[in-house]
């Protein structure tokens, strides 16, 4: 940021002092840049609290690392939680990735407060656990502290041949019966990054419309 300020303010200033006869257009340029800078300064990024939940081995940590553009090849099961802040579309997204193993699911509720958007991650290839993941999601949607919170469901692991398509998962989870909040299902692959941007665009859009 500071480098940007130095370049954008001082550089035109030098040009003005070196070429006084070219003063006018440069002066306008300087004014314009200054006003942009002022605007940038006056609206700090709005903070958004995002909760990342789902069963173990769903791909939450891989997704988190993809969002933060970090290496995803050394991931280990999450004991406890991970948190990362990511800048996106004028938002500061504080993403909480909470471990998904059954043993620590009772702790999920400790992280519900002030959540702006819930992202629920499903392993689309793990058909044996569709029922379990559906139950967990249903319980989350019943939580009072999460009432009205927009929910994005990532149908993850679409890179696997055995992955169920998002439409099938939506049907299985009876998503169309959700009436009390905005929701969206997005197929993605946290491994390749496919579909993640689309999902995050929806997240930012739902925060914006909630604000209004």
């Amino acid at each position, binding site marked *: 940021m500071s480098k940007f300020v130095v370049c954008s303010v001082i550089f035109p200033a030098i040009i003005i002092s070196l070429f006084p006869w070219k003063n006018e257009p440069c002066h306008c340029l300087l004014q314009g840049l200054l006003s942009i800078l002022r605007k940038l300064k006056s609206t700090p990024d709005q903070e958004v609290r995002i909760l990342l939940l789902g069963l*173990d*081995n769903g791909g939450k940590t891989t997704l988190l690392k993809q969002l933060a553009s970090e290496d*995803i*090849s*050394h*991931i*280990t*099961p999450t*004991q*406890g*939680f*991970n948190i990362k802040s990511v800048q996106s579309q004028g938002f500061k997204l504080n993403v909480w990735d909470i471990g*998904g*193993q*059954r*043993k*620590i699911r009772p*702790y999920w509720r*400790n992280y519900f407060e002030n959540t702006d958007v819930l992202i629920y991650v499903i392993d689309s290839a793990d058909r044996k656990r569709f029922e379990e993941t559906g139950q967990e999601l249903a319980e989350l949607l019943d939580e009072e502290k999460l009432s009205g919170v927009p929910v994005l469901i990532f149908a993850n692991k679409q890179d696997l041949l055995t992955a169920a398509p998002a439409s099938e998962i939506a049907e299985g989870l009876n998503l169309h019966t959700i009436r009390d909040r905005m929701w969206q299902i997005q197929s993605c692959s946290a491994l390749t990054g496919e579909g993640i941007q689309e999902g995050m665009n929806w997240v930012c859009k739902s925060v914006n419309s909630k604000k209004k």
Partner: protein
Amino acid sequence: MIRRIWQYIYTSLLRSWLKWLLRKSTGTCELQRICSGSKPGATMTKKAEYSLQSSKNKVLREALETSKENVEKHVDQILKEKEIKPHSDQLFKANLHICLLQITGYNQLYVCVEDLRKEVFNSDNPKHEAMLLKLWDLLMPTVKLESRVTKQWGDIGFQGEDPKTDFRGMGLLGLLNLLFFSENYTAESRQVLSRANHPKLGYSYAIVGINLTEMAYSLLKSGALKPHFYNSVPGPPELKDFHQFYCYLAYEFNKFWVAEEPESIMHFNQYREKFHNIVKTHLQDPDVSLTLNAACN
């Protein structure tokens, strides 16, 4: 800033002048002075490694890339290049040999560890399956596993009903470490497991173990483990030495966790980072040697 300039001047100019001056006054080259005058272990090997790396001589730099089998040949080449008669300085030759074995061995160990990490745990591979079942038998000698896919795996700290999804980015390396600990320190690993299964102060033994494998792996990769291996293995470090270091981490982390009494498992990463920093501080000591020492505890 000043430090950077100084460092630049030192490495590009002063170091070579100083070396020349010392060579003329003592009649020995830098490597000779290191290998005859330094304390064997990390102090000597790290200095020798730096000297070889920053050498302008290709023969010296190439010695760092060699394999265990060719170290002897490279030692002879260096002696020839530096015009040192082997019988005139026996100590130098022997020490240089050890240094090169340690340096090149460390790099080879990393390659070997990386291969195991990349090998995915495969349920169709009978060898992989046998190792997993052996881990259960070693940790739970009195309890029989009811079936291959069962909630019982949770009793030794896997997440779900099938451990295969828990090895993730650590692959077979994670399982090998867990197994080595149980095979070679059976009593200690059971003690760690029973403490990890504490209803309030506990953690998931196996997945924390896989997490600690990641710690050991990243320390190896960054080169931070060099002083430890240079001090504790007087030759090329091998896979079993890496497993030994994992055992140290698994045992010490448990002691650390119990002593810190964290509020809940949800604070794991915060304590993991604290423990990681303690280990990194130990590794900065030139005399470091981190081995599991159960007798003292």
